[in-house]
């Protein structure tokens, strides 16, 4: 789809989220809730004593029954549906031909670690903080957006071999 049209579509979805629930979109929050829930099932004791996890279990709250968690299952469904529609579903590793599969996967893993760690610190990722934040004109949204793109441009030179 043309990027501008896809942008309009994404904007309409964001607007719908604002109208229905008074909140923006988000992805990293859902990942966090999955982790919290996982830790809660594996080691309940640890979860209840930790300063971080305990607030998600207050008053018998269930981290899986949460707007953000359900939303990421929606993302998976929507992505799959769109991929099926455009015939893009296929198991594969996408990478530059100049690097090995192993290198690509190691960097993908590291990227995931960094991205979600940073997102927890900034209270939102590109969708939760930058996109939704910009759509309500919050300073936090603009600041996070500038920081993400600025730093990615800054580091781009070091990782150029991975991509071009």
């Amino acid at each position: 789809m043309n990027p501008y049209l896809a942008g309009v579509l994404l904007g309409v979805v964001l607007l719908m989220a604002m109208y229905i629930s008074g909140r923006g979109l988000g992805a990293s929050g859902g990942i966090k809730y999955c982790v919290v829930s996982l830790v809660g099932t594996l080691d309940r004791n640890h979860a209840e004593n930790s300063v971080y996890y305990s607030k998600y279990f207050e008053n018998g709250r269930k981290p899986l029954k949460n707007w953000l968690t359900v939303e990421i299952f929606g993302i998976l469904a929507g992505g799959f549906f769109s991929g099926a529609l455009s015939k893009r579903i296929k198991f594969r590793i996408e990478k530059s031909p100049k690097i090995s599969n192993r290198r690509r996967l190691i960097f993908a893993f590291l990227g995931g670690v960094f991205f979600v760690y940073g997102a927890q610190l900034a209270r939102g990722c590109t969708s939760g903080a930058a996109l939704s934040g910009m759509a309500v004109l919050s300073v936090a949204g603009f600041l996070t957006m500038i920081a993400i793109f600025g730093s990615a441009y800054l580091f781009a030179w070091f990782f150029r071999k991975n991509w071009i």
Partner: protein
Amino acid sequence: MEIRKKISVILLILGILLAILPLSSSRSLFVNPSKLLSEVLNPNVYFTVDQTAKFIVNEDTTVRIIDLRSNEEFRKICLPGAINIPYNSFIKSDPGLYLNDKSKRNIFYSNGDFYSNYALVYARGLDYRNSYVMSGGLNEWFRMVMESKFSGERISARENSLFEIRTRAGKLFTQINTLPDSLKGKFMVSARFASRKLDGGCE
């Protein structure tokens, strides 16, 4: 024409429209005016001071008594359990932040009848139907509850219960308002109403 130019033109036109529109952070009343008029003129938007006194004595949790006077006045004298939202900030901030708990009836009062009735129209115009007024305000409260004396030969059962409530409410009122300032401050902090936190973000 290529799509980039097209979308640029469309966005710019809409942007100019937005820049011209008077988009301040506030809003307007949106209930139909005639409907609002008949709604606020209906006497059932009033609670008498006796009804309010009963709510206070019974510690009724389905009502929330909102004091619209300034913070200084509130600190000096207030109804037991009242929440202070000065009329200024009621109008200037979004009343929805205070009123959107629909399970409770909000009863406005001020010293007289002006602020409370302005607030009533304003709140009901924003479709907060759970808004009411304590008719007569604090002046009426003093007149009815604090200074009423029974004068007559015999007392009927109804009058008796009415006077009992008045006496108990009056006692509570005096107790709270004669507390030393330090204690009173503590009490008010605990009664202060926190505006609702909005859901959102990735927290």
